[in-house]
């Protein structure tokens, strides 16, 4: 396994009670990567994140964190990771201030100035008990805790689900700030596809426990096309397109084909071949995701 990866999984499988949850996961995160993890509900996103972080072992295959077996990674390595789990695991009996002080005590790298700036920006009331916080406030506190120790690897499971649009935008800018340092890396899962399109340079699409896309976001957008052709040209189009994702036949209105470009496939002449009636379009990530889940 390549040792320069922050996190790396090779042929990793995970089963729960004999049921396959993750299958054949080969993936890694390196310095400078911002990986967006996309998947339908129940696709296995949280399990994948937990397995990559060594919180749960793979049933077979292996997972490494900074070159060490993830599940056995010593505290010194785990300290290089900041993690915001989906359901936050904050201690309700502490006040916000006590919580941040507790987290800060684990890290030499704690950035007090950054902490104060975020707390002020997000209006988190540190004098109150965490148990009295709203879901959004808890999420903000958890994010401050993960950002302020300036981890090399930041992992966030649905970080913005409870944030209002303004807080969400501030959070996105904070992640941009993190990614201007190319020694750092981010892995985040989200249902808000447009956030992913802003932040991620790489995308993992998880479907039923398998990574069906693990590559650059730009490449994905450039590789998927939707072709609208009249019935008369439908067969020709199907012949020309090799990796067809979906076909929708709308009778007299024509045919809609979504296809993925093979690395050696040249589409430049496609429009000429299919005739003037054909229309070729590129899709947003959301459309691509939907097309991959018929």
């Amino acid at each position: 396994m390549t040792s320069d990866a922050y996190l790396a999984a090779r042929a990793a499988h995970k089963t729960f009670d004999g049921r396959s949850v993750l299958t054949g996961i080969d993936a890694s995160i390196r310095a400078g990567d911002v990986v967006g993890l996309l998947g339908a509900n129940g696709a296995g996103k949280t399990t994948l994140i937990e397995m990559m972080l060594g919180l749960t072992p793979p049933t077979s295959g292996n997972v490494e964190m900074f070159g060490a077996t993830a599940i056995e990674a010593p505290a010194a390595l785990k300290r290089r990771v900041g993690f915001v789990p989906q359901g936050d695991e904050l201690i309700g009996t502490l006040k916000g201030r006590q919580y941040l002080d507790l987290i800060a005590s684990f890290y030499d790298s704690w950035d007090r100035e950054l902490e104060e700036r975020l707390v002020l920006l997000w209006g988190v009331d540190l004098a109150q008990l965490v148990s009295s916080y709203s879901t959004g406030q808890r999420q903000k506190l958890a994010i401050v805790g993960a950002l302020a120790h300036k981890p090399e690897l930041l992992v966030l499971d649905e970080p913005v689900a409870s944030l209002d649009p303004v807080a969400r935008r501030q959070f996105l800018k904070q992640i941009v700030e993190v990614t201007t340092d190319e020694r750092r890396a981010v892995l985040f899962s989200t249902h808000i596809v447009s956030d992913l399109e802003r932040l991620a340079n790489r995308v993992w699409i998880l479907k039923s426990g398998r990574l069906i896309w693990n590559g650059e976001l730009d490449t994905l957008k450039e590789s998927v096309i939707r072709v609208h052709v009249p019935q008369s040209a439908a067969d020709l189009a199907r012949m020309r397109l090799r990796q067809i994702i979906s076909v929708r036949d709308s009778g007299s209105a024509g045919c809609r084909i979504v296809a993925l470009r093979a690395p050696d496939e040249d589409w430049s002449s496609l429009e000429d071949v299919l005739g003037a009636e054909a229309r070729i379009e590129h899709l947003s990530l959301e459309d691509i995701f939907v097309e991959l889940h018929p």
Partner: protein
Amino acid sequence: MFILNPQSGTPIYRQLIEQIRRMVSSGQLAAGAELPSVRELALQHAVNPMTISKAYSLLEAEGLLARQRGKPMMVAEQDRAQAPRVQRLQQLEAELEQLVLSARQLDLSQEDLAKAIRKKWSEHDE
């Protein structure tokens, strides 16, 4: 300065490349003009900084932009201040195609579309 739409089927770096190309060929960005820093643009649009630097690097390789040590990216000296009109029109090809297609689907006439364009144009003159 730029309009970036992350939810487009066109990757963000391509949107940026196209807009800079257009502004250079129209002369809106003259030789020697400085572009915003990668960090500044990334934060302003809340997009990955690598996306911005990818666009800048490709334009640099193309000779449109020039990197200066410790200073912002700059528009390189071009052969002519303004590209020929045909060439500039060509850069609108994709948008024109889409516009005409949509207009036809809406059953609008050529005259309707021309009128709408003239109206929009004059709005920008004000």
